[in-house]
C-alpha cells in the first residue's frame, strides 16, 4: 500500500484557489490520516476539532430526522472550514474567506467516492 494513499485526492483539493489545507481525518479518533498543510498550520489541532464538529453535526442531523450530512461548512472572519464524510473518514478543507465555496463543495463531494474507494473496507463505515 502506498505511504500516501490519499495524495491525489488531497492534491486536487489544495490545487483549488483559496484552499490552504486539506486533510483526511478519522472521524472516530480525530487523528490525521493524511494531510496537505502549509508551514505553520497545526494539522493535529484542526483534525481533532473538525472531526468532533463533523461528528456532532452528523449526529444532530440524524437526531433531527434530517438524514445524513452531505456537506458541512463553517464560516469565520478569517476563513472557512468545509467537511464531508465517507465511512469513518472525514475530508476536511481549510480555505480563505474569499474561496469559491461552490467549487470546493463540488470537489469535496466528488472526492468522497474516491476516498471510499481508496480507503476501502479497512476504514469501516458508520
Amino acid at each position, binding site marked *: 500500500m502506498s505511504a500516501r494513499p490519499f495524495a491525489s485526492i488531497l492534491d486536487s483539493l489544495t490545487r483549488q484557489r483559496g484552499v490552504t489545507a486539506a486533510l483526511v*481525518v*478519522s472521524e*472516530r*479518533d*480525530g*487523528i490525521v490520516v493524511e494531510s496537505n498543510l502549509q508551514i505553520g498550520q497545526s494539522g*493535529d*489541532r484542526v*483534525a*481533532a*476539532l473538525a*472531526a*468532533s464538529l463533523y*461528528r456532532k453535526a452528523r449526529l444532530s442531523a440524524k437526531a433531527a430526522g434530517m438524514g445524513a450530512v452531505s456537506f458541512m461548512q463553517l464560516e469565520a472572519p478569517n476563513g472557512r472550514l468545509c467537511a464531508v464524510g465517507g465511512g469513518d473518514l472525514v475530508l476536511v478543507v481549510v480555505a480563505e474567506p474569499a474561496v469559491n465555496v461552490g467549487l470546493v463543495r463540488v470537489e469535496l463531494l466528488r472526492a468522497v467516492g474516491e476516498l471510499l474507494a481508496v480507503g476501502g473496507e479497512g476504514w469501516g463505515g458508520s
Partner: protein
Amino acid sequence: MMQMTVVEAWIEGPLKRFVDDAGAELALLLHPSGQVLAQHGFARAVDVMSACALAAGIHASSAELGRQLDGKPFRGLHHVGRTRQIFLAEAQSPRGAYVFLTVFGPESSLGLVRLYFDELVTGLAAAAPPEAPAPGPALTEHFERDLNHNLAVLFGRV
C-alpha cells in the same frame, strides 16, 4: 455531578479545563510513584488507589519497554475498549514528571484528548508555584502515610 478534587490547589484550573474541553469522564494526576495528586469522576478512595497503582505500574513498564526496544521510554499509551478508551501519558512540569490517566467515551476522541493533554501540560507548567520545592522521592516508609493523607484530602476526610 462528579466532583474534582486536588491535593494541591494550582492543579485544579488546568485539570478542570482539560476535563471540560476534552469531555473526559475520569481523570487522574499522580506521581510516577503512584501518589495521587488530583482526581475527577471517581466516587471512592479505593478506586483512586487502585487506578493510581495500576497507572504507575503501566507507566513504569511501558517506559522500560520503550527503553529496551527504542532506547528511550514510551511516554503515552492509548487503549480502546468497547465503549470507553484510556489515555495514559507522562506530563512533564517544572516540579518533575507526573503521570496522567484519563478515561473518555464516544463523545470525545483520541485527537481531542491528545490536543487538550498538550494544553494541560502547558497549563500545569504555567500554574506550578515556582517557589515551592519539587517533592522528593517517595520513600517506602512514608508511602502509605502519604497516600492515605492525599486520599483523605481528595475525599474530604481531612
